[in-house]
Every structure is written in structure tokens, then in C-alpha cells.
């Protein structure tokens, strides 16, 4: 929230908007990367900002090297996987506050500390997911690799610092293909409307709900189903608020920023809920885990056993989502349960379609009215299961 109520941040937004209206003599992704870099150095501080660029340069070199030596793709992927898994575990076990890291910090005060903290932040965040999307496309689909400055513009865009949506790498590259046009008044008005709606969600609705239930500085606790339901609504306004602010700034500046929420609390099935809640994460999982895994397995079986493969890929995808949020047994169980539930919904839906019951008016009305109640009960129940471990 600190960013949202910091006048400096909004001054930067206006500055970035004005600078992006200029026509630079080079690619739009590089122009945005340069401007974004300047803002990051101010917002994150010089040491963290510089270590971020040092890391980006190293990554860039590593990816270029791996692309050139195509035969070593497997080695590269394994090395990158082990690197990320290590950082992920380090972060999830909260090791950045462990005596070991404190010891390293005492040994090497200065830049090493910032590199370490930057690494740990990257391991957990949306930045890591954007990086995975980029590496997969560059390594396997032959998509071009951006230079390190433009790359940071894609991986760490200033307006998605807090809890940003995960923009597909291909969409970011479209920035270079866009024709430069001057924004119209209605375009500006629409972008400002999205930003103010986001601010209203976050600073008015979510904050009022938080202060009313937990006090000004009180810890958030979830002990009962009713508290869990309340917390789910709070979480929606908080997260959707942040996402709308990012979306509005993206639209204002013409930087590709995906929409993250599509009225998830009106979803009629759990499957539908997860396509509407944090939609960019769902899309990331579909692009990078679900589809490639299912395609590979179904090609191997030549299309046989698609139900079992579908169930398996759903569970694997949700286990990833669960682990990405937190490393713990209840979260793992939650991910497994969500995957199984979605597979059951899929089976039921296919059965209804085969029997042609799905077209009955009573079934359609039941789906529309009972569906959102069922989804709310399931999602808030699931939240109750994981809240104690996560909050």
C-alpha cells in the first residue's frame, strides 16, 4: 500500500506517461526499459536497483549462451530448474532471516547483501514467473531475446511491483510493433477510471474491512468459516484493487498489462472461479505447465487415456499454484483437493453434455443461482484450511 499513497510514485507515473509520448530513435521496449530503470532505481534504492541490473545481465548472458549451444538445452533447463528450486525453498523456508544469511551479511556487507536479498525476492515473486515465460519462449519457440535493459522492463515493470499481473512475454514484445498514436481524451479518462476504481477497492473497501475486523494494526486471523468468507471478500478487494491500479497505469502508458480479475465471486464452478481470479496466473499455468505437459503425455499415448492424463495435469498444475503461494502441508493438500475437484467438475459437465441435460432450463438456472453459492462455500472453506499456515 505504501506505493499507492506515496505522492512520489504518482509523480513517476505522470513522468513515465509524458516520456512515453516522445518518439525515441530506438525500439519501444528499450525506451520503456530505460524509463522503467530510472524509476526502479528511485523506488528500490540504488544498491538494490543496481544488483537487479547485474542479475539481469548475468541472466541475459546465460540465456544467450544456452540458445547458441542448442545441444545443451537439457543441461541449461536442469541448471535453471535447480537454481530456481533452491531459491524457492530458501524463500519459502524464510531463510533470508536465518543465522546463515545473517552470517553471510556480516562477512560481506555491502553489495553481496543486496544481491542476496534481490535473489530471494526474485525467487518468490511474479518476476520469476515472467522469467519462466520468457525463457521457455526464447529457448523452445525461437522468440527473440530482449537486451538486459528491455528485459528488466518486462520482468520488473515499475507499475506491477507490488502484486502485478503476469504479462505474457509475447504480449510485451508487441510494444515494438505498435504504431505510435497520441492518446485521446476518452482513452485517458478510461485509464484514470480504472486506476480510481482500483484505489477505491484497495484504499476504501479493503482497508475499511480490514480495520473494522482486525483493528488498525491488529493481526489478521481466520478461525471460523464465517471469518474465512469475510477474509475472502477482503482479499478480493485488496488484490483486485492493486491489479486494477496496475492495469490502469499500463493502459495510460500503453504498456501491455493483462486484466487479472473477471468478477470471480460470480463464478458458477470452481474451474470457472480459477479462470476469473488472478487470471494472469491461470493463463501462465495453462501456457507453461498444463498445455505443454498434457500435449507431451497425449502425444506419447497417441490420444489414449485422455481423462487420466487430464486429471494428472490438473493436479500437477494446482500443486504448482499451491507451492508457489506457500511451502506447507495444508497448502499442498489444498492444491491437491482443488485439482481433484476441478477434475470432478469436468467429468460431471461432460456427463451433462453427453446426456444433453445441460440445455434444460432448470439445469441452467440451477447452475446460475446455486453455482456461485457452491463456489463461495468451497473457496472460503479451502481458505480456512490454509489460512492458519499462511497468515
Amino acid at each position: 500500500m505504501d506505493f499507492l499513497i506515496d505522492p512520489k510514485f504518482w509523480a513517476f507515473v505522470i513522468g513515465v506517461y509524458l516520456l512515453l509520448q516522445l518518439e525515441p530513435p530506438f525500439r519501444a521496449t528499450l525506451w520503456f526499459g530505460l524509463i522503467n530503470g530510472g524509476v526502479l532505481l528511485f523506488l528500490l534504492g540504488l544498491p538494490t536497483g543496481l544488483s537487479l541490473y547485474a542479475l539481469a545481465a548475468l541472466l541475459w548472458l546465460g540465456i544467450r549462451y544456452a540458445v547458441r549451444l542448442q545441444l545443451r538445452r537439457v543441461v541449461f533447463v536442469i541448471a535453471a530448474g535447480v537454481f530456481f528450486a533452491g531459491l524457492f525453498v530458501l524463500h519459502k523456508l524464510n531463510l533470508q532471516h536465518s543465522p546463515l544469511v545473517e552470517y553471510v551479511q556480516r562477512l560481506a556487507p555491502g553489495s553481496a547483501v543486496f544481491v542476496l536479498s534481490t535473489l530471494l525476492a526474485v525467487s518468490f515473486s511474479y518476476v520469476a514467473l515472467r522469467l519462466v515465460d520468457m525463457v521457455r519462449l526464447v529457448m523452445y519457440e525461437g522468440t527473440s531475446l530482449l537486451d538486459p535493459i528491455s528485459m528488466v522492463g518486462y520482468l520488473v515493470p515499475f507499475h506491477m511491483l507490488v502484486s502485478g499481473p503476469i504479462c505474457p512475454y509475447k504480449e510485451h514484445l508487441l510494444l515494438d510493433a505498435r504504431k505510435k498514436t497520441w492518446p485521446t481524451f476518452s482513452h485517458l479518462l478510461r485509464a484514470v477510471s480504472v486506476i480510481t476504481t482500483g484505489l477505491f477497492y484497495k484504499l476504501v473497501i479493503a482497508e475499511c474491512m480490514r480495520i473494522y475486523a482486525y483493528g488498525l494494526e491488529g493481526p489478521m486471523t481466520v478461525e471460523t468459516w464465517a471469518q474465512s468468507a469475510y477474509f475472502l471478500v477482503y482479499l478480493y478487494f485488496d488484490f483486485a484493487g492493486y491489479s486494477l491500479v496496475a492495469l490502469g497505469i499500463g493502459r495510460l502508458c500503453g504498456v501491455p498489462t493483462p486484466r487479472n480479475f473477471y468478477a470471480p465471486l460470480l463464478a458458477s464452478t470452481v474451474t470457472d472461479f480459477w479462470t476469473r481470479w488472478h487470471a494472469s496466473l491461470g493463463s501462465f499455468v495453462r501456457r507453461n505447465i498444463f498445455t505443454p505437459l498434457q500435449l507431451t503425455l497425449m502425444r506419447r499415448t497417441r490420444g489414449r487415456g485422455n481423462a487420466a492424463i487430464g486429471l494428472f495435469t490438473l493436479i500437477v498444475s494446482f500443486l504448482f499454484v499451491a507451492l508457489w503461494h506457500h511451502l506447507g502441508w495444508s497448502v499442498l493438500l489444498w492444491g491437491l483437493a482443488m485439482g481433484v475437484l476441478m477434475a470432478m467438475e469436468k467429468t460431471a459437465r461432460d456427463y451433462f453434455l453427453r446426456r444433453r441435460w445441460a440445455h434444460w432450463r432448470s439445469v441452467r438456472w440451477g447452475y446460475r443461482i446455486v453455482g456461485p453459492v457452491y463456489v463461495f462455500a468451497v473457496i472460503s472453506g479451502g481458505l480456512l484450511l490454509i489460512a492458519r499456515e499462511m497468515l
Partner: protein
Amino acid sequence: MDAERTQRLTEVFRAVFNQHDLELREDLTAADVAGWDSMNHVNLIIQIEQAFEIRFSNEEVNSFAKVGDLIACIDQKLA
């Protein structure tokens, strides 16, 4: 796409979605066909790959927004 290919593609769609009266249009999307979800999408792709003896990349599979995109990609691969 010629008539023979269109017929073959239509048969694949009808078999995957179990709709024997389904007619393909270029602007047909997943929202227009009951049962066209992400899981059946992959199943559809596999059946098309087998019927036309072609292979799609992951990015192509994720990029098909409507039947017209799919037809264009098949035509390009068979050209």
C-alpha cells in the same frame, strides 16, 4: 482450406465434442461450442495432428482464438 480438408476437420470437431450436427465457421470460438474447455482443446489438437499428420508448437496451441486461426495454421503447415 479446400472442401476435403474442411470436411476432415469438421469430422474431428464432431467426434471430439460429440456433436454430430456441428458446422465449422471461421469465427467459431471455444465459447460457441459446448465442452470446448482447455482440456478438450488439447484433445482436439492431438486429434487434428493425427488426422492431418502435422505437429503444432506449444505457442500455436495457446494462440488459437477461433477456428479461422486453426484453419490458417493447418493450411500453412500443409502448404
